[in-house]
């Protein structure tokens, strides 16, 4: 079959008209309209079968109405004229019901922003169900050919964000995403691989299968790692988990204002190894980029960790107003009591290729990814979690076998203080509030509980 054009009805001209009408309907002092659209098709497979194959198309309007300094938010997916009238009416009613908010900074003023080229790939938008199933079956064929089984998912998606406010802000962005994950299993051994890209053609399913399989076929896991501090190499999947949790605990301005981020008192010493630089970079077209935030403010690149030193947190208009700064363009969609968040984490690659990384590890453990990490203490960034889908034993820079999964409990900053080598290749992965690009790391000490 051929697919309907996901952008049909979501183009800049159509959404410009829709948001302008909504602004006109909103009888408030000021108004902001955010439109978010998703057209996604996703297939899940498990142990040789495609179990679920879904399509979703939704467009949602979010209205912020301002009366004086009182703010009301209303949302709807009903985009008929009656639906728009109702949602603007509800937003105004919400604003009218509440006292003035002294922390409200006003709506964003229009600032110039530049579209990011090549973020919406027609090839990704027009993948048919048959093509998606064919790609999955090619991946599964590689895995079953080795006596293993494959589970995972493959999604292709179009996302649209448009922001208009009564001060003159107008911004529209359409982007594409293709996402893969695969777990390969052979008895108790498992492996994992994943990708996120705007252009689905850049992922070769058979290669992804081979990457996961290499971990599965490294050996049958026998023993649990000994309790204690281990020298480890963290694959980018495990690194992405740590960086996401670090962003969650530390790099939003709300966490700093509330005293739960280590950035409250970072001191003058490095907080992580000097070779580590982490930034938020929403403008890179290789990531699922977004040139502006959900207030229509242009995204800035923000250094979160700069050569081992604590960097800056990200701001939205509200947090910037309260701290005398400017918004960095990291507002989440309204209503948002959580404050700003870095949605595009980007850890700089190092000089070390994979073979040299394994040599730098020497004797230690190669850890594929973590599972169910949970924050124990946000200020110290202490978390707990488990390894998953491959703990491989390395001796003299060579993989010699596999071990069972184990729990770790440690401060993320403590882990990153022990970085001794950074991989030269990076992977882009989806995270629970955005995406992460990062390399593999060799770490001096990860505390496993055995």
């Amino acid at each position: 079959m051929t697919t309907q054009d996901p952008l049909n009805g979501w183009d800049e001209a159509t959404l410009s008209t829709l948001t302008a009408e909504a602004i006109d309907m909103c009888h408030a002092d000021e108004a902001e309209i955010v439109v978010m659209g998703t057209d996604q098709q996703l297939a899940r497979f498990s142990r040789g079968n495609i179990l679920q194959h879904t399509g979703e198309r939704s467009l949602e309007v979010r209205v912020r109405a301002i009366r004086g300094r009182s703010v009301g938010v209303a949302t709807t997916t009903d985009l008929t004229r009656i639906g728009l009238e109702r949602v603007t009416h509800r937003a105004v009613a919400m604003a009218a019901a509440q006292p003035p908010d002294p922390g409200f900074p006003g709506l964003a003023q229009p600032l110039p922003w530049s579209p990011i080229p090549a973020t919406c790939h027609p090839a990704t938008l027009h993948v048919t169900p048959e093509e998606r199933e064919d790609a999955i079956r090619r991946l599964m064929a590689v895995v079953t050919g080795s006596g293993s089984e494959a589970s995972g998912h493959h999604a292709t998606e179009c996302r649209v964000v448009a922001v208009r406010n009564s001060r003159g802000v107008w911004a529209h962005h359409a982007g594409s995403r293709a996402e893969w994950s695969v777990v390969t299993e052979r008895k108790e051994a498992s492996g994992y691989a994943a990708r996120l890209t705007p252009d689905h053609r850049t992922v070769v399913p058979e290669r992804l299968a081979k990457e996961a399989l290499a971990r599965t076929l490294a050996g049958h896991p026998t023993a649990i790692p000994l309790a204690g501090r281990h020298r480890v190499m963290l694959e980018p999947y495990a690194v992405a988990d740590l960086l996401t949790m670090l962003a969650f605990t530390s790099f939003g301005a709300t966490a700093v204002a509330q005293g739960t981020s280590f950035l409250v008192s970072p001191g003058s010493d490095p907080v992580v190894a000097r070779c580590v630089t982490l930034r938020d970079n929403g403008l890179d077209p290789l990531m699922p980029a977004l040139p502006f935030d959900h207030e229509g403010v242009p995204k800035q690149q923000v250094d979160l960790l700069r050569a081992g030193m604590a960097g800056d947190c990200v701001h939205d208009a509200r947090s910037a107003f309260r701290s005398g700064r400017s918004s960095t363009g990291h507002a989440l969609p309204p209503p948002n009591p959580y404050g700003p968040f870095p949605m595009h984490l980007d850890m700089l690659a190092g000089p070390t290729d994979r073979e040299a990384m394994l040599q730098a590890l020497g004797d230690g453990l190669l850890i594929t990814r973590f599972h169910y990490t949970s924050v124990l203490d946000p200020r110290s960034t202490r978390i707990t979690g488990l390894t998953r889908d491959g703990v491989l034993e390395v001796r003299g820079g060579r993989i010699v076998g596999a071990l069972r999964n184990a729990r770790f409990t440690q401060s993320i900053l403590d882990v990153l203080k022990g970085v001794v080598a950074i991989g030269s290749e990076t992977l882009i992965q989806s995270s629970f509030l955005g995406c992460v690009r990062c390399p593999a790391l060799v770490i001096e000490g990860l505390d496993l509980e055995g």
Partner: protein
Amino acid sequence: MREVLEWCLDTCAAERVTYADGRFVRTQSETITMVNGDVTRLSSEESVGLGIRVLVGHAWGFAATSDLRRAEVEAATARAIAIARASAQASRRAVSLGASVRSRGHFHTPFAIDPFTVPLEEKLALIASADAAMAAVPNIRVRQAMLAWDRHHKVFGSTEGAWVEQTLTETACALEARAEVDGQSAARSYPDARGHHGWTGGFERVLDLDLPAAAPRIAEEAVRLCTAPVLPDGRTTLVLDGSQMAIQLHESLAHAVEHDRILGHEVSFAGGSFIGPDDVGLLDLGSPLVHVWADATTPGGLGTYGFDDEGVPATRFPLFIEGRLSGLLSNRETAALSGLVPGGVARAAGWQRLPLIRMPNIHLEPGTHPDLEALIADVDEGVYMATNQSWSIDDRRENFRFGTEIAWEIRKGRLGRILSRPSYQGRTQDFWRSLDALGGPGTWSLWSVPHCGKGQPRQFARVSHGTPAARFRNVKVGP
């Protein structure tokens, strides 16, 4: 919406699909959040749409749309059928749904006070009062208060002839006080943690919970935690309050009995289970005190409804009796595969999501110790932990570590000092085997889990657990 759903089912019937169902869902949600006295969120949200699930041969297709004009509904229906046909070409498995489901009926959440009719001004005054009570306690750095109320109107129809309509009303509230003393920070919550204590029902429960009255206590406990000694590492007798028992039950047993996990359908994302497909009737946790029931009929539970999202009527059935595995959480497909009866537990997080096996309310039956005092009376040395703070468990639901907001040491049968940074860990079957006492009905109440994640695209479900306080021996604890 009957007309919209009928367009879709008529189209499916005309295309001679094996089976089809459709769900129209309208969700209305309103939320107030106050942080340090400022209203940071006052929102009214609405989501309306239609999800269509189609079985062609032995392959499923699903499509959803928020555009309910006829042409768009027909396009979404065609998309679901096209996806199913694409999958059917290469399907290697047999899908059976078992006996037909032809439910007809209505269900409405009962309540005394409709939360949508309580004036916003009254709600704002209530949480402002709670906020002020927390603010009166010195050293409180962050105060948060939240009220939320939702209504889900759902219409389900299928080509088998099922047609059910439901209106579910949920209400929730929460307080949190975060203190800071000499650079040390700690938080306490009420009625429960994670910023959301919810139920199906009305505003009457908010009034019963009396947020302003509880606010000073949690603020004072947060301050005391900042200077309290840290719980030392060791093995000891552990008493858990109902809130923490709810998470313990949720993570270690309730997810483990989900049939899709057991069959490996979730192995790449949510994970598997330590329970095998043939373990019903055989697996024994080793504690005769463990009686666990699935119950979608419990008044007030967030997992309470009249029919699931396959049209199967809500019911109550055992999962563990005297510690022995007695049942699984199955949908129509997995039940048919294994010769079981579907448990009415297929739920979708919204119109745009496929129904998955999601736990309804899961309860641990109370024991015989009448109250907390009785549970700790014969504990010479131990720890009492309350209010869940963190949770982590492996992908087979075996190796867990949970933290709580607060703990008290137990010495010679009495509660002593407050201890900070409490957590405990263990392995699921060993841990339940170490259960030696359960609180009685007086310690049993419903606790909510508001953000239970599963599936791709990600779905968040709400569920309640009825749990008593409980006592476990020789448990590894520490900061």
